[in-house]
């Protein structure tokens, strides 16, 4: 199973999702013209859900338009569950990750939203 995230630059995305978020690379296959089939997985569950870092915004104009519209509206492209949003927020801020929404309680969840530097807002979420 996998989830796709459109990225403006696959090199930068691989760096961000591995060195900052802590994913590990799973597939990295050249597809010509600078595009790659690039996936990362959670370090603890390497047979689990794969995150596809897809170069769609550079190859398909509607994808670029959609991504930009979400980004400008502050809407997260997707979300990742974490054990503790506050701790993850502090860890990522120390790594210079920029947040548009600081840890905020919304009913029975706590959320925060950051910029993945590749054209997306990404939300982290903790169930309370």
């Amino acid at each position, binding site marked *: 199973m996998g989830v796709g995230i459109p990225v403006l630059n696959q090199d930068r995305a691989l760096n961000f999702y591995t060195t900052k978020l802590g994913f590990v690379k799973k597939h990295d296959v050249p597809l010509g013209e600078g595009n790659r089939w690039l996936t990362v997985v959670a370090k603890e569950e*390497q*047979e689990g859900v794969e995150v596809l870092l897809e170069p769609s915004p550079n190859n398909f104009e509607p994808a670029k338009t959609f991504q930009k519209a979400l980004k400008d*509206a*502050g*809407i*997260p492209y997707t979300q990742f569950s974490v054990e503790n949003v506050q701790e993850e927020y502090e860890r990522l801020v120390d790594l210079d990750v920029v947040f*548009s*929404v600081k840890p*905020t309680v*919304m*009913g*029975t969840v706590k959320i925060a*939203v950051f910029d993945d530097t590749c054209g997306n*807002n990404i939300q982290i979420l903790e*169930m*309370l």
Partner: protein
Amino acid sequence: MTFYETEMERIRKLCYSNDKQLETVIAVRNYIDHNFEKEVNLDFLSQIRFTSKYHLLRLFKKYYGQTPKQYLTIRRLEEAKKYLKQGMSVTETCYYVGFETPSSFSTLFKNKIGLSPIDFQKKQLLQSHTQKE
């Protein structure tokens, strides 16, 4: 303020304005999280929160989309996956996480996870060996 932040505010007012209800369901969920291996039932949960069991059932479902019993089952299965990955036997795991009989545990596990506990464990151990190589 972005569109998303405005929407968050709107949804907060619409769905999450009752602090007392939220406090109740969050406390119940936390109780289940820390006592999943014990016998946890609706009568007991409603007593510790001084509310009727039907009210609690309705509230929990409203805020978490599932009943306390369903949440407890999922929580136990998640814990069971952890212990099976660590190599604990199926029977031991069953009792350790609070299920009453290995046969009902295995049936439930297969229904929810898609593999029997023993097959899940074999798959996990195989993957862990592959990752180490």
